[in-house]
């Protein structure tokens, strides 16, 4: 009994020693294993094996070295981190996958909340400021006498010289009924002048109707975006041309940057019979879902139709154009579309930051990937038109520059040919029950 007890005592006494032996043994083994690559290098002159990098470790240690030892004064640690994250996201090659620092995230929230108020003018980048493409009808800008081609060079005295268009727009927008002072440079005027405009809620028109060929009754409907109101405005336009006895239709999606997916489904449903695929949504793991044309929206036009696209047709425009083409409703005329059929998910992260990540993409019913890829610094892809027609590079989408709109000319030519091939009267848009389509 005693002897046995002693043996157990020995064992107990041995406990820490054995435990320690295990500990030390593991340490020794780890050191040996760790030094193995360099050992190999020394013995056989092989290149050291490349172990994958733990991103967290790598970032932490580099950041710590910079903070502790960089000779110059390093930027604050949050700036260093935000820059690093932006560099990481840029490595995806996708401009829509991006990091929003607290400032950018706050602005994004402001932009998407509630209705914005502004002066009601379409702007584009111009050297030294923002050029007014055209003031919207009945907008504060139009009432103040601003004209297409005017360049806004300062907002409330702040020069736009080195301000991105996006930021210029933010400066111009503001709460309803507040005033904004714009400094304008106008062609033919020596000195810039200043106008004060009261901001108001802007009803951006979405649909314009043009009679392009009165003899053949060919109408063009220019859909400028896919806002919430776009489908209803489209209905109004379709009623108008129907009442006027349209015989052919050009659906113009040029310079349409897109908008709501819902609106694009609505728009496609006007031209494609119900329960047909408009778009497939594909994630990394495969098909996430399909969207189909809605019931009770189909207009059954039965007149020849073409769709105009160009490099400014993006996102929802491309979904509609792709669906119309794949369902053989209308051929596409013009230039390669922009190529943005991507879905971003915005995730809020710590420190009031957020990250927008492209998590899915849209495919046309036939499975065409809408997205452009950057190959050798050039964007390649987007929707390819069935009939490629390029407009002059400095062509503007204005009434004044219509003479140089070769894409429109081609569209008219194609439709006239089709009209000649059909019997007169057959192609006239038939009367239809309007209540059915009013939302």
């Amino acid at each position, binding site marked *: 009994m005693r002897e*046995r007890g002693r*043996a*157990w005592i020995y*064992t107990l006494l041995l*406990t820490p020693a054995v*435990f*320690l*032996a295990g*500990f030390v*043994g*593991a340490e020794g083994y780890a050191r040996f294993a760790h030094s193995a690559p360099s050992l190999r290098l020394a013995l056989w002159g092989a290149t*050291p094996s*490349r*172990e*994958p*990098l*733990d*991103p*967290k*470790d*790598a970032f*932490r*240690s*580099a*950041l*710590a*070295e*910079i*903070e502790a*030892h*960089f*000779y*110059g*004064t*390093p930027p604050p*640690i*949050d700036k260093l*981190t935000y*820059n*690093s994250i932006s*560099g*990481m996201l840029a*490595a995806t090659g*996708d401009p829509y*996958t991006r*990091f929003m620092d607290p400032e950018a995230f706050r602005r994004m929230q402001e932009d998407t909340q509630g209705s914005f108020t502004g002066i009601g003018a379409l702007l584009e980048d111009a*050297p*030294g400021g923002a050029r007014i493409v055209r003031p919207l009808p009945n907008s504060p800008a139009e009432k103040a006498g601003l004209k297409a081609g005017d360049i806004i060079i300062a907002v409330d005295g702040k020069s736009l*010289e*080195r301000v991105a268009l996006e930021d210029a727009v933010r400066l111009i927008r503001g709460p309803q009924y507040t005033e904004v002072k714009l400094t304008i*440079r106008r062609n033919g005027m020596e000195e*810039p002048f200043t106008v004060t405009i009261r901001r108001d809620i802007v009803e951006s028109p979405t649909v314009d109707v043009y009679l392009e060929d009165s003899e053949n009754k060919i109408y063009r409907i220019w859909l400028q975006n896919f806002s919430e109101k776009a489908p209803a405005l489209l209905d109004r336009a379709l009623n108008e041309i129907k009442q006027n006895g349209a015989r052919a239709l050009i659906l113009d999606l040029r310079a349409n940057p897109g908008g709501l997916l819902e609106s694009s489904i609505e728009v496609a449903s006007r031209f494609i019979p119900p329960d047909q695929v408009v778009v497939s949504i594909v994630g*990394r793991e495969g098909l996430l879902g399909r969207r189909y044309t809605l019931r009770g929206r189909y207009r059954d036009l039965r007149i020849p139709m073409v769709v105009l696209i160009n490099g400014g047709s993006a996102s929802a425009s491309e979904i509609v154009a792709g669906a119309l083409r794949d369902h053989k409703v209308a051929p596409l005329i013009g230039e390669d579309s922009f190529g943005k059929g991507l879905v971003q998910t915005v995730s809020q992260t710590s*420190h009031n*930051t957020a990250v927008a*990540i*492209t*998590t*899915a*993409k849209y495919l046309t019913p036939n499975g065409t990937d809408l997205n452009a890829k950057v190959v050798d610094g050039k964007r390649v892809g987007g929707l390819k038109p069935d009939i490629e027609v390029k407009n002059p590079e400095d062509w503007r989408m204005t009434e004044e520059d219509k003479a140089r709109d070769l894409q429109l000319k081609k569209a008219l030519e194609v439709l006239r040919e089709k009209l000649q091939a059909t019997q007169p009267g057959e192609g006239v848009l038939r009367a239809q029950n309007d209540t059915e389509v009013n939302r």
Partner: protein
Amino acid sequence: MRTKVVRGGLRLLALAALFAGGWLTRNIVASYSERQDSALVVQRDFAPALADARAPMPRPKVSEPSMVELYYRVYSLVRDEYVEPVDTEKLTHGSLEALLASLNDPRSQFLRPEQREQLTRALQGEIEGIGATLTVVNRKTTLRVGNETTPLEQSLLQVVAVAPNSPAEKAGLKPGDFIDAIDGQWVISEDPYAEVVALQRLHSPREQIRQAGERARQRLQNSLTLSEAIQRLSQNPKNSQEAKPLQLTVKRGGQTLTLQVARATTKVRPLEYRLLERRWGYLRPHLLNAAASREFAQALRTLKQGGAKGLIIDLRGVAIGQQEPALQILSLLATKRQVALVEYREGKRYKKRPLILPTAPQPANLPIAVLVDRGTYNVAELTALAIRQTARARIFGMPTYGDASQTNLYQFRDGSGFTLTVGRYLGIDGTQFHQRGVQPDERVAAEPRMRGQLGGDPALERAVKWLSTQEKKS
């Protein structure tokens, strides 16, 4: 008997379990502590920034760990949710590249594995590409438009030095040359729209602005970023299509030259030496690396045995080097153990510490003439100044380049790495040579016809003249 065996077995089992427990515990402990320090290795050849060269490098900590968490959170989101499978190495490298770039210091750069290998090979004397040491010079200048001038910031790609027998040397590229374009592609050195902006401010005619805008657009369309340009110049052709020489547009003084420069590996011998006129030991290290410092010691012995009465150390065009080998060489020449100072940042304050030789100096006890020019760069400048300040020495030639950055090279486990400026070298008396260069005691502007040959090398001749006077004195 049986119970005894069973009990013994139990004891053994218990011990085995304990041993295993110890093993496991160590690994768990290690897995926690390793997270702190596993990723980064400071290259031994480069001196640690703070401590003595031999002391272990303290592992600094990040001041705001939640930033690392944020970084990792975004990384995980992209890795898991991006629409296509992601090359995670690209993400990590992209972020580290941006991290280092945000320091806005040409000598602090992320290095992809192949770039880091290139650098390592260059330090060993195998230089790829055109065989020139390049740097980026930030410069503030003015742009003249009409009667007005506007400030303009430039980042210019400059040749620091050309390696002996390199394609760059054969093509006639010179230290100080600015490389403006490669194969007709403009190396972006300034905002091409600066002129447009200036014209607008002057309310210039619309047509003039439009033309300037068009010029800027075309310039940018056919252009290379600085890092693309450096990459192209420091890489060998990958295939026969790329094998034809690069056409470099070079600005030198007020002239613009076009040079055809091939790309191939240049092998640089560490050192050449000989006895001139049976009295003067001439030593020319082509770079300052470990091999050069070893050969320097041998050469010095040989020259002394051969009866050298004075030394000439030719550091002209020496642009590649490391601190440790330079200190090894200095320990054969300097009479003091402290040879220079390093200024470094600690928190928000700047402090100085002495640069100390690794071993006690064994001075050659001979007068030393040092030859320098504007291609004498960084560690070589430090060496020249330290010799001058700690030995009986005099400097001949032209002011040196003027880059006193002390740079560490860090290596990650995957083969990538980065360089980081961690200090600034000063003379032992506090002399600044950053952006000023080390000033020669005797200026010799004339370029050598035959380098290292008496009768063809004016700076060398002046050095020999001075050494003769020193010989008489001693």
